[in-house]
């Protein structure tokens, strides 16, 4: 038995060593970093312990801008993408021919490189000296004036960011909802049809309650994912997000750590912990709300 136990630990050793070095230790370390004041990256010394790093971050206009951008992004994309995914997967599950084809097409953005395809979106939305770009051409058909979505007004940029984010996250949501819809017991539908229930009523009284656990799951993971937005913004607006005024919280963390404005792991740690606290709070609220709904 003892020999067996030793063997088990041997099997687990690589995983434990790697997780310890790159997951557990950093988790403790980031807390320590965040309270070390005046940390110098080159000499690895600090001047004191306290909450100054948090105060600095919370008063940094760049951080506040990032916070605002992230919240707007979350509030717009999470409900919208979940709603669109629900509409599309309901449509998908009501058809038979071509269903596989549509499913395959819808899933494509999931397997593409966010950075690379973001460049295509940039080209489509961008307005340069040579051309107004494709999206502006289409806006022109409806008589709307050309707008520079990449270097122009704030809400134009935010629109592209939200649009691209939704484009990227939809495949996962459609996939999850389609399989949730497929797993609803068909007997309920048959019974409802015998009773002559209307389609709308069936949707709201049977379908929606049956898939609501999956919807809750999608909203929670959607919130978490959207709060960590970064790659999409980089793809559209370049690495200097502060200059574009489109930085996100995660972007702020990395800018503090590395790059032209980097070298401040203490500030980065404090910002990362603030982000974690926000995500944790929102997730708890989500869970409480959804549990309360179940009880009602």
């Amino acid at each position: 038995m003892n020999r067996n136990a030793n063997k088990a630990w041997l099997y687990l050793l690589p995983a434990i060593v790697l997780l310890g070095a790159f997951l557990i230790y950093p988790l403790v370390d980031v807390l320590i970093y965040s309270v070390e004041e005046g940390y110098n990256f080159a000499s690895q010394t600090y001047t004191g312990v306290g909450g100054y790093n948090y105060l600095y971050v919370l008063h940094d206009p760049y951080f506040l801008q990032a916070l605002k951008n992230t919240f707007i992004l979350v509030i717009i994309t999470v409900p919208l993408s979940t709603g669109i995914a629900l509409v599309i997967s309901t449509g998908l599950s009501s058809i038979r021919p071509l269903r596989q084809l549509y499913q395959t097409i819808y899933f494509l953005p999931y397997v593409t490189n966010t950075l690379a395809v973001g460049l295509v979106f940039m080209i489509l939305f961008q307005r340069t000296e040579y051309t107004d770009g494709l999206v502006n051409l289409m806006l022109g058909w409806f008589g709307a004036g050309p707008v520079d979505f990449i270097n122009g007004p704030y809400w134009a940029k935010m629109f592209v960011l939200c649009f691209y984010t939704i484009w990227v996250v939809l495949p996962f949501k459609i996939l999850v909802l389609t399989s949730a819809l497929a797993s609803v017991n068909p007997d309920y539908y048959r019974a409802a049809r015998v009773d002559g229930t209307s389609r709308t009523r069936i949707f709201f009284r049977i379908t929606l309650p049956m898939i609501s656990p999956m919807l809750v799951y999608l909203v929670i993971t959607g919130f978490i994912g959207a709060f960590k937005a970064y790659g999409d913004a980089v793809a559209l607006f370049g690495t200097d997000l502060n200059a574009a005024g489109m930085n996100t919280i995660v972007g702020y963390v990395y800018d503090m750590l590395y790059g032209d404005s980097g070298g401040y792991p203490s500030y980065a740690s404090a910002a990362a912990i603030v982000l974690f606290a926000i995500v944790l709070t929102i997730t708890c609220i989500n869970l409480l709300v959804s549990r309360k709904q179940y009880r009602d």
Partner: protein
Amino acid sequence: MIRNDEFAARQRGMQRRRRAGKLVTYLGLSVWAVVVLFPFYWMVLTSLKSYGAYNAEHTPVFFTLAPTWENYRQAFTAVPLGNYLLNTLIFSVLTTAAMVVVSTLAAYAFARLRFRGRNLLFGLFLSMMMIPSELVVITNFVTITNWDLRNSFLGLILPSITSVFYIYLLKENFEQVPDELYRAAKVDGTSDLKYLWKVMIPICRPTLITITILKLIECWNSYIWPRLITDDQAYYLVSNGIQQIREEGFGRENVPAMMAAVVSISVPLILLFLTFRKKIMQGASQGGIKG
């Protein structure tokens, strides 16, 4: 008789309404399909337009009559795109291979071997799934820098190997293999390692393939860690390479060549997806990597 007519008419009306509903559904679904596919069409189209032709278009043109491969030549010669692709391939394959070995061993220990504290340790592992990577990346950056591993494959790979979720997925799968097989093997004097290799892995091959593909996709698209840890072009992965192309370009704003690079980066993944479509979609619905 009248009632019968009325009934038939109502039936016909319902049928017509249902057919109209179907039509609207197909129309709506097709609209979204176009929205999804259009960026792909546009990147391929632009990559085939010549530099001069593209810049002469004040209003974008939806097709090209003179496709050219010149942009692809440009993409692979003006910037080390081939090198980026090779780096990404090496990084993805090595990381995924290491992940599969480490996860298989750990999952086997959790699923088959008895030892004290097993449930406690597994609970600990599960709770690690909640740690966001943004929190730990800061220290990892410092660690790798201190170990002098920046701009090296080891530095890129080491922190990317472990994935608690895949250990969990494999463990669940391993546990479904009947215990009798294990006891029979023990009676025959088969060693654990041999049992794992000869029995468990072949039985659980579908899951192993799924997590391998998911990890490959994840590695191919990873951006943040490689960006932090490499500033030497010789170690750039495709995501960083494309960002470099975007910012510094081909000496001048060369959109068609940029799109050629984007196509070259996207094609391997799309081929992988089309080959393993079912497996990828099944695996992704179990636990997404982007959501």
